[in-house]
């Protein structure tokens, strides 16, 4: 890495063309894609919520499925942003050479990366929001304050899209992404309060979990769904924002090193 790779990004509005391109591809497969994105989180929600929920009286003062709903909204956002920023972006960068063609036009790598970041966050926004809507339809969302979860989903998507783009910048092949899923995504699913309250973890694990972005997404989404604004909300927003901006900056520097030789 040289200092030039770390130059501050210079964006143009042309990043929107990248976003639009990806939207056009998505539209061709929108229905199967949405169903695919919804099936997995809803299986967790119903399978665990009803199955496991029958054995539990209440969790954190609510039904287990009600507890689970906000967690699944956040985890499905994480999953969807990660997949898009890794497998799909890697296809466009490395396999199809779509970025290479775009860079011959008057766009810069900074534009391409911003377009991909916002696109991955947008796609995960659709997944997270769809789960939230289904949960609302099932009566699992008691408070109208849940509307504040909608922008939170987008911010969460940005944070995980940025992290995914770091992996993409480093990846020699699709197989590489399994490390990230095994070492980062799955532990976050289990440690960040999606399935059970953080307080059930040993103190060291709790402290570790506080450093992970998903903890802060769930930590804010769950109270909001139940009509409370937690006093720690600025911290949650700040952590997610730092993850989004920081990871994107690192991803950009690594991608510049990879492609602008």
């Amino acid at each position, binding site marked *: 890495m040289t200092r*030039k790779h770390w130059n501050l990004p210079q964006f*143009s509005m*042309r990043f929107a*063309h990248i976003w*639009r*391109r990806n939207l*056009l*591809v998505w539209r*061709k497969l929108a229905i199967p894609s949405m169903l695919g994105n919804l099936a997995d989180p809803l299986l967790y929600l119903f399978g665990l919520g009803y199955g496991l929920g029958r054995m539990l009286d209440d969790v954190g003062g609510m039904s287990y499925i009600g507890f689970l709903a906000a967690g699944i909204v956040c985890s499905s956002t994480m999953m969807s942003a990660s997949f898009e920023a890794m497998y799909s972006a890697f296809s466009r960068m490395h396999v*199809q*050479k*779509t970025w*290479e*063609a*775009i*860079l*011959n*036009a*008057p*766009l*810069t790598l900074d534009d391409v990366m911003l377009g991909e970041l916002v696109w991955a966050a947008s796609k995960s926004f659709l997944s997270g929001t769809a789960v939230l809507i289904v949960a609302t339809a099932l009566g699992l969302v008691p408070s109208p304050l849940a509307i504040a979860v909608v922008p939170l989903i987008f911010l969460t998507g940005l944070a995980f899209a940025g992290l995914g783009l770091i992996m993409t910048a480093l990846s020699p092949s699709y197989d590489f992404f399994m490390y990230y899923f095994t070492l980062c995504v799955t532990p976050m699913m289990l440690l960040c309060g999606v399935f059970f309250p953080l307080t059930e973890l040993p103190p060291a694990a709790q402290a570790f979990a506080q450093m992970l972005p998903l903890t802060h997404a769930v930590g804010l989404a769950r109270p909001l769904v139940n009509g409370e604004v937690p006093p720690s909300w600025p911290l949650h927003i700040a952590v997610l924002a730092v993850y989004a901006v920081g990871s994107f900056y690192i991803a950009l520097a690594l991608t510049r090193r990879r492609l*602008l*030789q």
Partner: protein
Amino acid sequence: MSAAAPLTATGLRKSYGANEVVCGLDFALQRGECFGLLGPNGAGKTTTLRLCLGLTDPDSGTITTLAKPVPAQAREARQRIGVVPQFDNLDPDFTIRENLLIFGRYFDIPDQQIRARIPDLLEFAGLSARADARIQTLSGGMKRRLTLARALINDPELIFLDEPTTGLDPQARHVIWERLRNLLKQGKTLLLTTHFMEEAERLCSRVAIMDHGRIIAEGAPDALIVQHIEPQVVEVYGEDAPAWAEHHGRAMTERCETTGETIFCYTHDPAPLIADLDARNGLRYLHRRASLEDVFLKLTGRELRD
């Protein structure tokens, strides 16, 4: 437009680690010409194109593309450049028509204007009947033609072509050449890299032969042949050829080169050679005029480049 050179590069250098790939290049394109950058694999041709597009920064030297300093204003320069890359990178998620539309948007051209241009571009590429076909269903030649049409979406003044006919069959290659001549007639400037000397001879008004990051010869193809090489070539084939060259051929020719069992005899007067070969009737031979390829091989050597 001004009469200034569409592209000038001076003192261009670029290293990767300890390996200097471009070592002090100077060249300038004239408006409306096809300029060929020739060289064996690894000569630095593609790196030179990337430098001129502002996709990589030179270690030193200056580039002015369409009156814009590159890389500082590469984005503005690329607005009026078309690029045909070495490897197809058409968008496989889209049809032919969508590929052109999406690519046009990257230049901020309004959809309406792009749609108005598409029929002409499809006509140019000979793909009018396949406008809604997916990319995967196209032959190699069709993909290249579409890539060329895509490079014209912004009506560029300057077009970069990186080995545009590599991997094509002769029919497809001739179609591409005909299209490129067509573009020259329209007054476009072309920068072509190739290692097909025939392609360079047919299309280029001037060529620069590159090796190891340097330009080692530059000029019109005919002039380079006159300047660097004897005008007539007799190629002699077969297992007896090296022995013949040793005992008879070498004495009758100005310069002899050997590749395996083929002897290349370069000379101003081929008559004695041919008389000798005819008298022996055991040896096969071919008499022809010297070509750019002979110049290229003389200057860059006959060893393999990997």
